[in-house]
């Protein structure tokens, strides 16, 4: 049977369609959207808040106290300002990308814009992870190259029977483990979160781009 015959059946279904009344349509327009765009925005904002909050929490809990002792506080402050400037830049790019998303665009452009917005957040997370790693490397080098730094920070002296060398080794191993766990945990978290959220979109985008390249 030819497709044209099915097309005829398709055309004649017009009249049988279920009707939704104006009242119902109106109430639908008032309800909340649960679209991907909205979720990308919400998750993005949560991530910005999360990393900023983490930074703030560290300051409050005196995590940076040892650096004050070592006279590194002005460097810390400078890098902090730089960090906030970069965060603001990320926020601007994120918002710009987000507000460029329009359902009126063609399908491919729309998907491209959604994925670009999500990528901004991804790079923001990469930036944060990289800055954690780089900052800890710099700080470790600074601390361990400063004479008596370990003793000053951890209040140890040779009479405790703990050698500063041992403290250094333990500190480095502990930091490496914490960093590794953090990266693994976040990686898994994002993989699941965006994997679930964008599975369909990614699949459809691939299908469309495949079509253009063949």
């Amino acid at each position: 049977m030819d497709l044209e015959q099915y097309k005829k059946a398709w055309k004649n279904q017009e009249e049988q369609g279920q009707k939704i009344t104006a009242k119902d349509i109106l109430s639908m327009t008032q309800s909340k959207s649960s679209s991907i765009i909205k979720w990308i925005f919400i998750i993005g904002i949560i991530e910005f808040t999360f990393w900023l909050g983490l930074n703030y929490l560290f300051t409050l809990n005196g995590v940076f106290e040892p650096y004050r002792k070592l006279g590194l506080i002005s460097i810390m402050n400078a890098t902090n300002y730089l960090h906030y400037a970069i965060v603001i830049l990320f926020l601007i790019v994120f918002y710009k990308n987000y507000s460029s998303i329009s359902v009126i665009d063609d399908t491919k452009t729309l998907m491209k814009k959604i994925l670009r917005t999500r990528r901004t957040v991804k790079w923001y997370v990469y930036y944060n992870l990289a800055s954690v790693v780089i900052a800890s490397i710099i700080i470790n080098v600074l601390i361990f190259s400063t004479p008596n730094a370990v003793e000053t920070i951890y209040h140890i002296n040779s009479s405790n029977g703990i050698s500063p060398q041992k403290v250094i080794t333990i500190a480095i191993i502990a930091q490496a483990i914490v960093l590794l766990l953090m990266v693994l945990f976040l990686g898994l978290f994002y993989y699941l979160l965006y994997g679930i959220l964008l599975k369909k979109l990614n699949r459809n985008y691939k299908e469309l781009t495949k079509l253009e390249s063949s």
Partner: protein
Amino acid sequence: MNKDLEKDFLEDFEKNQNIVHKVCRIYTNNLDAHNDLFQEITIQLWKNYAKFRGDSKFSTWMYRVALNTAISLYRKSTRRVKTQDIDEVNFKIAAKEYDDTEEQQLKALYNAIKTLNDIEKALVFLYLEDKSYREISETLGISEVNARVKMNRTKDKLKTILNPE
């Protein structure tokens, strides 16, 4: 707020709501999901209605928003129905008997479309709605040549599903 805008929207929507129903029927597999997608499309249409300035037909614009919502914005992954999942009885009746009622043809057609992927569904849908290749390529954001090539392949695929040897 803007009562006139609301009134115009409801009028336009009511006249063309069949488009949305058809999109929902293609892209979902049960009534709950159908209603869910219908609501999301309605929200998107209303949210963007102020931007719609009548430079194109409302229906043209509706096709775009409805398909975009189904393909890109709707969160739930619409699992593709596998051929063997389809209501076999209906399927066979429609395929075997030549002079079948239109209703059964329609059922078979919908079942066949549901086995396609999201992009193929959009292509077939626009074909059934008599859209030109130009409009199809503009809606999906692909070139006209590619739309044509993919359409022919999809139609062949559909024919094979509808008329198994």
